[in-house]
């Protein structure tokens, strides 16, 4: 994970560490600058994880509020963004758990494993609803739709790896699971995405 937004390296802009120290002293204006600096990244993360603009907006806000509350305990031993990102992830993860949003069975980890055995590597089952309207859609929106149809665990693994570029160890720590589980989730999430996007790759828009 990259430690800071580009703005933080601009010599004119105050450094994260200075803004954090001022925030810890109670300076809400400094915290406001941190919000501005990182809101787009935190919002992107919450949005990708739950695929709903309004809820993602609320959760991103909740993450910053929680960060403000927790700032006195932040020891500056990690990059601020890494620390903030964990909070945002936990807020979103708790929300997902609370909502008990699960895949409906078709997409749960167990069943997907059965369907995506190595024998199906080059012959994944087709996504069965590729109607004409979908074919006209941009690849981007198809990817978003596909991501939305993953289970929350698979979605998180993909977002943490592909977007945030976290290492397997970091993902395991964040998702509170083993390295093996991380790899399985990444594998089956990608298999599932391949299946759902098969039509796209075979018939590029």
């Amino acid at each position, binding site marked *: 994970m990259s430690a800071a937004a580009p703005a933080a390296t601009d010599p004119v802009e105050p450094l994260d560490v200075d803004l954090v120290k001022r925030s810890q002293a109670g300076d809400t204006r400094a915290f406001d600058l941190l919000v501005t600096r990182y809101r787009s990244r935190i919002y992107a993360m919450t949005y990708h994880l739950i695929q709903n*603009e*309004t809820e993602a*907006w609320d959760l991103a806000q909740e993450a910053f509020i929680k960060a403000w509350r927790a700032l006195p305990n932040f020891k500056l031993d990690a990059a601020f963004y890494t620390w903030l990102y964990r909070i945002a992830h936990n807020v979103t993860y708790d929300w997902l758990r609370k909502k008990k949003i699960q895949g409906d069975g078709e997409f749960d980890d167990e069943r997907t494993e059965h369907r995506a055995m190595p024998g199906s590597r080059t012959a994944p089952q087709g996504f069965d*609803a590729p109607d004409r309207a979908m074919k006209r859609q941009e690849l981007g929106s198809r990817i978003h739709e596909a991501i939305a149809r993953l289970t929350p665990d698979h979605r998180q693994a993909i977002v943490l790896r592909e977007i945030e570029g976290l290492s397997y160890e970091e993902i395991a720590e964040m998702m509170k699971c083993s390295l093996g589980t991380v790899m399985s989730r990444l594998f089956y999430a990608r298999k599932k995405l391949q299946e759902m996007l098969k039509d796209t790759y075979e018939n590029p828009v």
Partner: protein
Amino acid sequence: MTKEIPNQKSEWRGRVKPLRHSCFVILSSFVLLNSSFCPAQQPAPVPAKKPATDGKVWGALVYATTDAAKLTGSTEKAPENQKDLSGRLGKVFTPYTHFEIIGQHFQDVFREYESWVVPSRDLFLKIDSKGPAAGGGMNLHLQVWREQQVLVKTDAVLHPGSPLFIGGPKWRDGQLLFVLDLQRK
């Protein structure tokens, strides 16, 4: 991300509670083609245990007018703990002299869910509890709705015996008002 119309800004606040339209939005986005998740298709749920609450409010819709002959004839009466409500409303909402309760609603404020205070089908309130405040009060996010339009959103702290008077839209020769009061525990 195309929600740039200023009026839609209203849709971006205070939705962190589980009971909302998001239920539907999430459903449609997550399980669009896999509707077995849809609660409508599940067997009727077993009655849940009573949800946690942060307090109780009394909400009323009041018609204010200067002309007693224009009153609607509602027989609603203010509860006993609302001492001299008409007199107090009269001190704020001049020049009105007559205040008639059209509808009223005692409502538990749920801790986890949004709470609707619906003294009428046309004008009503939505409350999201933000937890207790010092001195027996309650932090809340309050919205005033007129049918399917939100008129105002506020963050407020309510204390028992210190009601909120809300001046709403004009109606006939008078005005519609809300009274919202946190009840003592």
